[in-house]
């Protein structure tokens, strides 16, 4: 069938491969990291206060929720609200009619879900500057993320994580 809601379908496929995602910030960073690992999501990202952020992705998720394809649960935390996302039965049904050609990503999603959103913010920020040399990337992290005070260990772990993400095919 044709291209109706092609980008929405890719996101639904992502949720189908991930059981549930907890946290909007985590969701934003996971999609970005996958995108940088050659998964062809088309949502465009810009650098924001908390690292790469896509307004298109936020809007598309809202549409998927309003259409009943994704379920969003809001939980009150100390100073903020936290959101959980899951594919609904209607979403599953829609996907049955839709041929989505995306590389397998289940294993990578599981690994990212295990990490904190602070760590994923670091990884996505490093990927944002990946056209620079390794030293320049680290320098950028120290200047644009000075308040986060990332340690050398965290930065090294992030380099390893990026390699692992790119090595893992499924």
């Amino acid at each position, binding site marked *: 069938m044709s291209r109706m809601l092609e980008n929405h379908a890719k996101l639904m496929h992502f949720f189908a491969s991930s059981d549930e995602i907890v946290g*909007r910030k985590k969701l*934003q960073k996971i999609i970005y990291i996958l995108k940088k690992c050659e998964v062809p999501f088309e949502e465009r990202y810009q650098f924001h*206060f908390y690292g790469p952020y896509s307004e298109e992705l936020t*809007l598309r998720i809202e549409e998927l929720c309003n259409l009943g394809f994704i379920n969003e649960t809001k939980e009150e935390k100390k100073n903020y609200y*936290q959101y959980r996302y899951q594919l609904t039965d209607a979403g599953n049904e829609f996907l049955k009619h839709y041929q989505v050609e995306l590389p397998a990503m289940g294993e990578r999603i599981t690994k990212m879900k295990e990490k904190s959103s602070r760590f994923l913010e670091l990884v996505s920020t490093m990927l944002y*500057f990946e056209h620079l040399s390794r030293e320049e990337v680290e320098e950028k992290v120290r*200047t644009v993320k000075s308040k986060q005070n990332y340690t050398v260990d965290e930065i090294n772990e992030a380099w390893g994580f990026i390699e692992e993400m790119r090595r893992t095919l499924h």
Partner: protein
Amino acid sequence: MAYKDEKLNEEKVFKDPVHRYVHIRDRVIWDLVGAPEFQRLRRVKQLGTSYLTFHGAEHSRFNHSLGVYEIVRRILHNFEDRPNWDPNERLLCLCAALLHDLGHGPFSHSFEKVFKLDHEDFTQEILLGDTTINAILSKVENGFPEKVADVINKTYPNKLVVSLISSQIDADRMDYLQRDAYFTGVSYGHFDMERILRVMRPMEDQVVIKESGMHAVEDYIMSRYQMYWQVYFHPVTRSAEVILSKILHRAKELHETGYKFALKPTHFLSFFKEKPNLKEYLALDEAVAMYYFQIWMNEEDPILSDLCERFVNRRLFKYIEFNPNLQMNEWMELYRLFNKAGLNPDYYLVVDSSSDLPYDFYRPGEEEERLPIHLLMPNQELKELSRQSDIVESISGKKRTDHKLYFPLDRLEEMSNRSKTKKRILEILYG
């Protein structure tokens, strides 16, 4: 005197319908305005295809860029001698404001979607590449083009500087809301900018608003909300965008399948292949694109010529509200029926979603997604706007989204009244 400090002998002013006057005193700013890469913005409309809905909306990215510069100039005038503000950042802010949209191409929304480009990349290339703009910025000081590029890319270490050009209450939005309202002729989009500028306060990481100015900001948020639904998401404009995107898809597809164009699409070839280089990108402005669309009206390919004729002569697609969840079966049936009717559904049956449009809503910054607007309370505490304002809270809660189904009703009407296919299509579309 160092180039960065040079002033013009006399202040230059541009008459402006929104801000009355745009004032220029810095030599650097004056030189940047004269650069070919900046002058090119005169040939890129600010609102893309909206002129087909609002006939006044012919204003350009050039007008808007000058407007953003002027707003930042006024903000910085108010910031003089305030704590947290470093006056050494002044010229950097003015340059970034003026140049923030430099990389926009023709009908940039559709072009970027179809050819998978990002105007922000081209902005960076113009700032840092072999261009007149780069030569001017390089004269200011070593590394200055990189600084301007960082501010526009939002990766400059001083977040206060970034937030002037790009935050949820920034000079960019304040200009385009007022300018787009003025040129479209709608009565939304107006708010008391002078008041907002007076209550803006520089803080370490961001611009905040004195609590007493909350109502002026409420007005700004409301006008933003109304402009999205009344102007930016206008269904007729979306119809024009749909047709334009399909023209670009069709031309690309034809090129890839070896179709011989009567007029070789020289300016599009690099767009069809991969990413065009900067020279190729800058050579294709809206005047050039429109020239091709007019010539392609006479192409042999019936889809390309029809779509171009529709775009040029404003024979747009009609639309109905569409719910892809509840109407999945109808969609599949329509898809089959359109094929049967000889209308390629990949070009003539299009679902368009609100998220296909590039505009954004106010977001209160839940879970640290985006920095929200903060109010500075009398006790110096910062409070997020929607927690203080009932009006803002009410429109930053559940988001309205929509999907529309676009199709050429005229082509369906041309079919014989005895056609069962026609009857069934119209039955599904209109009940």
